C-alpha cells in the first residue's frame, strides 16, 4: 500500500453530520441517475393537474365560492397529494437498500446508522421540491394566479417542507418494516390514497356524507391543504396554519425515533 491514510478526527456529532451529508450525496445521485423515475417525477404532476382540471373542472366549479376557478382551488390539493405520493419513493429506496445487502455493509462501518435514512429522506425533499415547482409553473402557464406575497410564499414553502419531511419519515418506517418492494407499494398506497382523497384536495367537503365530512375536515392532510390554499388565494388562514404545523412537527418528532429504532432492530436478532 502506497497511500498514507489520514483519518478525520472530530466530535461524534460532527462525524454523524458528515455521514449524513455523504449519504445525502449518495441518494441524490440515485435520483439523478434513475432516469425513468425522474421522468415520472416531471410528467406525472403535469398529467394529474391537466387531467383533473379538464375532467372535473366544469362540474366542480358550480360548487365553489364565487370567483374561484377549479384550477386555483385544485393547486394546493394536487401539490399536497403529489408530495404525499412522492414520499413513497423514500420507502422504496430504503426497502431496496435493505434487500440488496448494502445496508449490511453500512452497518459494518463505523458510521452513524441514522445517516442512511437521513440521506433518503433529505434527497426526497429535493425531488419533491422539484415536482412542486414544476406543478406551480405549469399551473401558472394554464391560468393559475396566486395572490401570495413574498412572505406568504416563504410560509407556503415552509409548510410544504415540513409536510414532505413528515411524510417521508413516516414512509421510511414503512420501507423498513415491509418485507419487499411490492409490500411497500400496497402498504403506502392504502395509507396515502384514503388520506388524500378523503380530504379537501379535489372537492369541497360540504357535499360529503356526514361521517366522511367530519373525518375529511379534521384529518391532517386537509389542514395542510387548507393552509396552502388560503395563502395561495389570499383567504384568511384561520387556524389551518397552526394545526398543520402541529400535525407535521408531531409526526416528525414521533416518526424519527421510531424509524431509527426499527432500522436498528431490523435483522439484528
Amino acid at each position, binding site marked *: *500500500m502506497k497511500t498514507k491514510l489520514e*483519518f478525520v478526527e472530530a466530535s461524534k456529532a460532527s462525524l454523524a453530520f458528515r455521514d449524513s451529508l455523504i449519504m445525502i450525496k449518495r441518494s441524490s445521485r440515485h435520483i439523478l441517475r434513475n432516469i425513468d423515475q425522474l421522468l415520472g417525477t416531471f410528467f406525472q404532476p403535469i398529467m394529474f393537474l391537466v387531467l383533473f382540471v379538464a375532467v372535473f373542472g366544469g362540474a366542480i366549479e358550480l360548487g365553489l365560492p364565487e370567483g374561484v376557478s377549479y384550477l386555483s382551488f385544485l393547486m394546493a390539493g394536487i401539490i399536497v397529494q403529489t408530495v404525499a405520493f412522492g414520499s413513497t419513493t423514500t420507502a422504496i429506496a430504503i426497502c431496496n437498500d435493505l434487500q440488496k*445487502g*448494502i445496508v449490511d455493509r453500512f452497518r459494518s462501518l*463505523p458510521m452513524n446508522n441514522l445517516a442512511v435514512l437521513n440521506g433518503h429522506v433529505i434527497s426526497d425533499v429535493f425531488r419533491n421540491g422539484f415536482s412542486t415547482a414544476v406543478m406551480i409553473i405549469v399551473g401558472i402557464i394554464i391560468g393559475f394566479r396566486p395572490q401570495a406575497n413574498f412572505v406568504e410564499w416563504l410560509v407556503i414553502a415552509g409548510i410544504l417542507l415540513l409536510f414532505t419531511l413528515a411524510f417521508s419519515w413516516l414512509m421510511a418506517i414503512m420501507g423498513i418494516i415491509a418485507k419487499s418492494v411490492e409490500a411497500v407499494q400496497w402498504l403506502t398506497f392504502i395509507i396515502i390514497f384514503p388520506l388524500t382523497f378523503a380530504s379537501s384536495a379535489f372537492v369541497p367537503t360540504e357535499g360529503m356524507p356526514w361521517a366522511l365530512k367530519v373525518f375529511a375536515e379534521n384529518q391532517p392532510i386537509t389542514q395542510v391543504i387548507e393552509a396552502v390554499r388560503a395563502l395561495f388565494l389570499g383567504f384568511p388562514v384561520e387556524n389551518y396554519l397552526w394545526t398543520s404545523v402541529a400535525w407535521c412537527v408531531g409526526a416528525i418528532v414521533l416518526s424519527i425515533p421510531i424509524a431509527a429504532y426499527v432500522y436498528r432492530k431490523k435483522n439484528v436478532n
Partner: protein
Amino acid sequence: MADTITVNNLHKSYGKVEVLKGVNFSVKKGTILALLGPNGAGKTTTVRILSTLLSYDKGSVQVGGNDVKKDADKVRSMIGLTGQAAAVDELLTGRENLIMMGRLYRLTHNSAKERAQELLEDFDLVDAADRPAKTYSGGMRRRLDLAVSLIAAPPLIFLDEPTTGLDPRSRLAMWRIIEQLVKDGTTILLTTQYLEEADQLADNIIVIDNGKVIAEGSANQLKSKIGSDRLELTFNTIKVLNNATSVIKAKGLEVDEKELKLSLPIKDTNKDVRGILDKLAKDKIKIDSMGIHKPTLDDVFLSVTGKGKED
C-alpha cells in the same frame, strides 16, 4: 502471536431453530482461517455475529480485544466485510463506491480518493472505474466489493464465500489477491463450501456442520486424520478384477465392482507398489490403469460428517 479473534461457546437461535450450538475457535494475527461447511452449517451466521451485524444468545466474542456487543464501533473501525451478495451501490460508479465507503470509514476526502485510485489499479478495475457498478460482470463486482472492504486498510477482513458463483479464472484471480493480503499482514477469516479453496488458502481450517465445530487443524493435519495414500487399480473385466482381488488380499482393501476398481492403503510407495505389481505380474493379471490417490479435504469432510458436501 496474539489472537485477533476469540470465539467462546457461541450460541445463536432464530426463534426455535438453533443455528450455532457452542462454537469455539480463535484466529491468530496475520493468518487465514477457513470456516468450511455445507450450506446452512452456520458459517454466515458466525461471520455476521463477528462483524457486529447480528446479536447472539450466549458465549463471548472478541475481535481485536474488543467485545463485539459492547464495543461495536471499535470493532467496526478495524474490520472489512465482503458478504455473499456483493454489497456495492449499483447506481454509483466503482470509484464513487470506493470513495464513499472510504469516507464513511472516516478517511479524509483526499485519502479516500488516492486510496481508491490505488485499489482500482491493484484490482484491475481502472477501465471500468467511472462506469456504474450495475454494468460490471460478476467477477468485477466481487473485486470491487473486496476493494471496498480494503479501502481503509483494516487489519482484519471477513470474506463470506468470496468465490461462490465465480468462473475458474476469476476464482484464481481472487485467490491471488487473498494470498497477497495475508503477505501484507492482514488477518483473514474466510468461509467457503469449497474444500479445495480452504486447502489452497487457509493456515487453519474449522470444519463446521449443523452449528458445531466437528474438526479443526491445518489442511495436512486434517488429511492425516483420515489416513494414508491409497493405490488405485482399474481392470478391464470383472473376472480380472476378481482374480486381482484374490491375489492381493491386503488389509484395508476396497473393491468397487461397478467401476472395476480396487484400492488399498500404502505406506512406503516404492516398496508397496512394487510388491503388488510383482504379485499381479506373477499371475499375468493385466492392469488397465493405475494411480495413487492422496487424501483430499473431500475425504475429511466425508469421514467427519458422514455425508458428502452439498453443492
